[in-house]
C-alpha cells in the first residue's frame, strides 16, 4: 500500500532520513518515533511535497515524485497544525477540497455535506471555521481528508488538543475509517496508547531509519509472566503458589508469577480459593507498544541531537518508566 526503498533526505547539516525502507500493508498503521526521527519528513516525501536525495517512495503504486498529481488525487492528509481558513464555512471548505481533488461540483457539494455529518459536524457545517472549538476544527480537518474518498489517509497527531471525550470520539472515527470504510490509514502520533488502540501495524523510526515494523499483535508478544493483583493478602497467595512450585515476585499487592504453561492459571485459581484471596486482576503479561518502542530507541540520546555524520552527541540519560499493564 505504501512503500519506500532506501529513502533518504538531507537538510543542510541534518540527515533527516537515511535509507528508510518500509512496507505498509492495508489497514491502520501507526508511525512512531522521537522528534527528529524523520516522521514528518517521511510523510512529506510520501505526499510528494519533497524530493528525496536517494531512493523511492510509492503510495498505492504511484511514485510520489514522478506521479505526484495522480497519487494525491487518492490521498487524504490531516496535518498536525491548524491549517484551516478561519473565514470559510466548513461546508464550503470541505467542498472546495473535494473539488481540488477532482470531484465534480455537484458530487463535491453532496459528499462534503455527508462527510461533515459522518464526522459529527452536520449541524455546524454552515458556520465559519474560525468560531469552532479545537475538537470541531480537528473534525473539519478529518472531513476534508476524507471527502474525496481517498484510498490512503495520512493523519498527523489527530488527537491534538482534544479533551478526553473528544479524543475518544476521534479514535472511534479513525477506527471506523480504517476498519469499516476500508480506507488505509497512516497515523503519526506520540500517544502510544492511541496507536495501540486503533493500529494493526506499526512502523517505528529512529534517527532517520526504520528500527521496527510489523503487525502490532505479532510484536506485542506474551512474556513468561502472569500478573495477579489482590485486594489484600498478597503474601499468603504468593506463599501458596510457591508451595505449588511456582516462582513468584511480589511488588506491593501485585504478584508476578512465572509462566511455563497454562497450568499456572489453575494453580493461581486454586491458591486463591485456598487463601480466600480477592483476585482483582489477572492477566498474562504482554509487551506493550511502549516496551517495544523503548527497546527500539535504547541507543538514541535523550536530547535527540545528532551531528551531520549521525553520531550521537549526548549520552542517554533517563531510564524507562514503569511498563504498563495492557
Amino acid at each position, binding site marked *: 500500500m505504501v512503500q519506500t526503498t532506501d529513502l533518504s533526505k538531507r537538510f543542510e547539516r541534518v540527515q533527516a532520513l537515511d535509507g528508510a525502507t518500509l512496507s505498509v500493508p492495508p489497514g491502520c498503521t501507526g508511525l512512531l518515533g522521537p522528534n527528529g526521527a524523520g516522521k514528518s519528513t517521511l510523510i512529506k516525501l510520501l505526499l510528494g511535497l519533497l524530493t528525496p536525495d536517494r531512493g523511492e517512495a510509492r503510495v498505492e503504486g504511484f511514485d510520489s515524485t514522478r506521479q505526484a498529481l495522480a497519487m494525491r488525487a487518492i490521498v487524504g492528509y490531516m496535518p498536525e497544525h491548524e491549517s484551516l481558513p478561519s473565514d470559510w464555512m466548513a461546508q464550503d471548505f470541505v467542498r472546495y477540497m473535494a473539488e481540488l481533488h477532482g470531484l465534480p461540483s455537484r458530487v463535491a457539494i453532496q459528499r462534503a455535506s455527508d462527510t461533515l455529518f459522518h464526522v459529527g459536524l452536520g449541524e455546524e457545517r454552515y458556520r465559519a471555521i474560525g468560531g469552532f472549538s479545537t475538537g470541531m476544527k480537528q473534525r473539519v480537518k478529518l472531513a476534508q481528508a476524507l471527502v474525496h474518498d481517498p484510498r490512503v489517509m495520512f493523519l498527523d497527531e489527530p488527537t491534538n488538543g482534544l479533551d478526553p471525550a473528544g479524543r475518544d470520539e476521534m479514535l472511534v472515527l479513525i477506527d471506523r475509517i480504517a476498519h469499516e470504510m476500508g480506507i488505509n490509514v497512516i497515523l503519526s502520533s*506520540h500517544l502510544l496508547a492511541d496507536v495501540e488502540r486503533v493500529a494493526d501495524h506499526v512502523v517505528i523510526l529512529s534517527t532517520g531509519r526504520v528500527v521496527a515494523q510489523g503487525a502490532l499483535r505479532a510484536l506485542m508478544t506474551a512474556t513468561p509472566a502472569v500478573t495477579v493483583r489482590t485486594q489484600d493478602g498478597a503474601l499468603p497467595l504468593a506463599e501458596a503458589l510457591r508451595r505449588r512450585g511456582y516462582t513468584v515476585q511480589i511488588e506491593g499487592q501485585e504478584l508476578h508469577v512465572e509462566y511455563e504453561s497454562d497450568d499456572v492459571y489453575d494453580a493461581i485459581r486454586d491458591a486463591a480459593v485456598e487463601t480466600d484471596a480477592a483476585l482483582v486482576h489477572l492477566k498474562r503479561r504482554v509487551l506493550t507498544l511502549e516496551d517495544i518502542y523503548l527497546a527500539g530507541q535504547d541507543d538514541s540520546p535523550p536530547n535527540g541531537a545528532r551531528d551531520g555524520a549521525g553520531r550521537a552527541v549526548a549520552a542517554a540519560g533517563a531510564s524507562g518508566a514503569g511498563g504498563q499493564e495492557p
Partner: protein
Amino acid sequence: MTTEITPTSRTEPSEASRAATGRPGPGVPATIEVEGVSKWYGDKVAVSDLTFALGPGVTALLGPNGAGKSTTLKMLTGQLRPSRGAVRVLGQPVMDNPPLYRRIGLVPEQEGLYPFLTGREFVELAAQLHRLPRPRQAAEEALHTVEMLDAADRRLGGYSKGMRQRVKIAQALVHDPDVLMLDEPLTGADPRQRLALMETFTRLGAAGKTVLISSHILYEVERMGSNVLVIVNGKLAAEGDFHAIRALMDDRPRRVRVTCSDPRAVAARLVALPGTLSVSVESDALVAETAAPLEFHHAVSRAAQGAEARLYGIEGLDEDLESVFRYLVSR
C-alpha cells in the same frame, strides 16, 4: 526482531512519595487553598464557587475543554483576580504578592517566548529575574532536567513545539519552586521525552513539591499520582484520590470481565451472588456488573473452581481514571 525485549518494571514508591499524596492531612499543611472562588466576565460565569485544598505531591487538574481549568490555573498563580473568594498559596494570599512568585513555577499553555533569544538565554533570564545566586548554573541544571542542553544555544524561534514546551518547563523549574503548576506540559513531546518528563514530575512530587498538572491525557496523568481535581462547567465536580472517588459512585456498579474456559458455567455461579446485577456471556469471557465488588472478586476463583473452568483473566473495566472521568462528566 531477534533481540529480546523485557518489559520495564515499575519502581517501588518510597515512603516519602507515599506521603506526598497531593492532599493535605495531619502533619501535612495545605500548600494551595481555594475558598469560594468564582470568576465571571460580565454575564458569563467562567468558574463558580470553587473550594479545595492541595498538599505536597502530584495533583491532576482535569475537565472538558472550556470547563474553566485555564481560568482556575490563572487564579492560582495570581495572574487573574477572582471575582469572589480567596486563593492562598503556601499560606499567603497569591494576588499582588511578588515575593511569593519566587516560590511558584508556572508553565502556561500559551506561547510567550521571545523568538530571538536562545533557549539558554531564556532560562538564564528567568533565573536572573528570580535573583538566583548562580543563574548560569541553575539554568544549566534546569535545561538538563528537560533534556534541552544540546539545543540550548539555538534560537527559540527555530524550536519545534515540543522543544518550546520543554524550555518553558525549564524556566519554571530553574528557581526550584515549592509549587509548580503546569498546563498541558507534555504537548509536542515524543514518547520517551514524555516518560522522562513524567518521571521528573513524579520525582518532584515525591520530594515534597506541590505539582498541579492540567492535562487531557488521562492514562499518563494516572501514572504520576492519583489525586485529582475535576472541574466541569465551571464547578468542582470531584476532588481526592480517584480510586476513592470511584468507590463513592454507588450508582455505577463495577464492570468486570472474566476470561475463562467455560464462561457460561462460571457466569451461572456468579449470578447467584446477591451483589451481581447482570452478567453477559461472550464466547471466551463473561462481563459482570456488580454492586459488591469485593465479594465478587473473592467469589471468582471459587466459582471457576466449582465450574472446573480455567481462569485466564480478570479485569476491572471501569476502574481507571478515564472511566471515572467519563462518569463524572456525564453526571
